[in-house]
């Protein structure tokens, strides 16, 4: 698009360029933008209203439209495509401390039983916590432990690895790595080296497999 006739007497950019500018501003803005605000942000001599009009025409019939919200303008997806947005409507919440701790224990100690989780955390595990993690498909049931009562065990899933960007549970950093990354207070400095017993010591079986380095 080139409209040399539209060139302002000042040094305003061509209208096609002004349209690009308005497009970028409206796209990046966190709320609808008024014509006055647009004018204030465009270089001197620009005609925000005209650029808007061009832009609006350009998006006619597209998947996104330029719509007026009160006195301001914003991009919105075309109403007929609303059904595609269903997956977008997710509410993000942080996992509770209990859930994240339980998850961490399962990830590091898997396969692990409920009793073992409780022992490590030192508190009883509420039913909802495990249910929640199961529902999120971050953990699943593993093999039953061949001990009295044959308790079920928990392990982490592919979905879990995917979410945390891990290729396998073995790639989870060990305590030594956590210390090195500064995630762990290591006041007794190279603690991992000096007192290996504290790190690996009371770990249940599966752990040794994970951390044996």
């Amino acid at each position, binding site marked *: 698009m080139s409209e040399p006739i539209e060139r302002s007497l000042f040094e305003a950019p061509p209208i096609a360029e002004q349209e690009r500018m308005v497009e970028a501003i409206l796209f990046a803005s966190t709320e609808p933008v008024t014509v006055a605000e647009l004018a204030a942000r465009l270089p001197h001599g620009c005609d925000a209203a005209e650029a808007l009009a061009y832009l609006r025409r350009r998006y006619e019939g597209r998947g996104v439209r330029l719509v007026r919200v009160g006195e301001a303008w914003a991009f919105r997806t075309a109403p007929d495509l609303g059904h595609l947005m269903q997956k*977008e409507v997710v509410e993000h919440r942080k996992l509770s401390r209990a859930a994240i701790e339980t998850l961490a224990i399962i990830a590091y100690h898997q396969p692990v039983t409920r009793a073992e989780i409780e022992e490590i955390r030192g508190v009883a595990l509420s039913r909802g916590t495990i249910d929640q993690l199961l529902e999120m498909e971050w953990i699943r049931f593993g093999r039953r432990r061949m001990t009295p009562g044959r308790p079920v065990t928990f392990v982490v899933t592919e979905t879990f690895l995917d979410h945390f960007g891990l290729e396998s549970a073995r790639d989870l950093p060990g305590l030594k790595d*956590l210390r090195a990354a500064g995630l762990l207070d290591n006041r007794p400095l190279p603690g991992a080296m000096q007192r290996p017993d504290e*790190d690996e010591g009371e770990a249940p079986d599966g752990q040794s497999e994970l951390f044996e380095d």
Partner: protein
Amino acid sequence: MSDGDLFGALPERQSVTERLAAEALIVDVDGFEGPLDLLLTLSRTQKVDLRRISVLQLAEQYLGFVNKAKALRIELAADYLVMAAWLAYLKSRLLLPPDPTDDGPSAEELAAHLAYQLERLQAMREAAARLMARDQKGRDFFARGLPETVERARKVTYSATLIDLMRAYARIRTKDEFRPFVMDRDHLFTMEQALERMRGLIGYAADWSDLETWLPEGWDTNPMRRRSSLAAHFAAILEMAKRGQVDIRQGETFAPIQIRRKDAG
């Protein structure tokens, strides 16, 4: 070691500005990120491509630097001294004829490796600069500011990052290791102690009473001990209030804090 040879004489020919620069280095020793960084800076005074650097000359520049630092009584970190020892060794190896019985790497190989390390560090510095000079999100280009959500089929997802996960694990695995840092343990009353103590005593607090009357004996006169035990007991009763074991009230700002046992049921 004789200075009469070709390489040894070089530093003597340093210009005044180069010498000033070298002295400025000394003052600025804290600004260096380790011996390799210092070597890289020194190598610039040779004004040649890093691939043609004289490692022998560089070794001497470095040793000169370390000597000056010593003369100025500047304490150098151990890794600078380790590098100095290694360079002194390398320098002697470079100057002496090779020992035919030595089957380790030759002095030239060692020198070449040092040159390689410098070149690689320099290359990474430049790569870092080029990376940071790129257009960056949130500065030069931008994402959609108004992501859209449609009020339909609302689904809650819980998120956590790997950092959260690792911190959680670290927290569990090290909870016994954490201890408050104190210079003088005689004057410190911990929250755990206070909690332990209050747990035993709270049964007697049937009526509102000032928290300060509950401080242990011997901890209410010395100001430091008083402050520590008061803080510990305050934290302890907050914890107990959270567990529903105790009620806390305060008439107004800075008024005495009062506690009362919460009757079970």
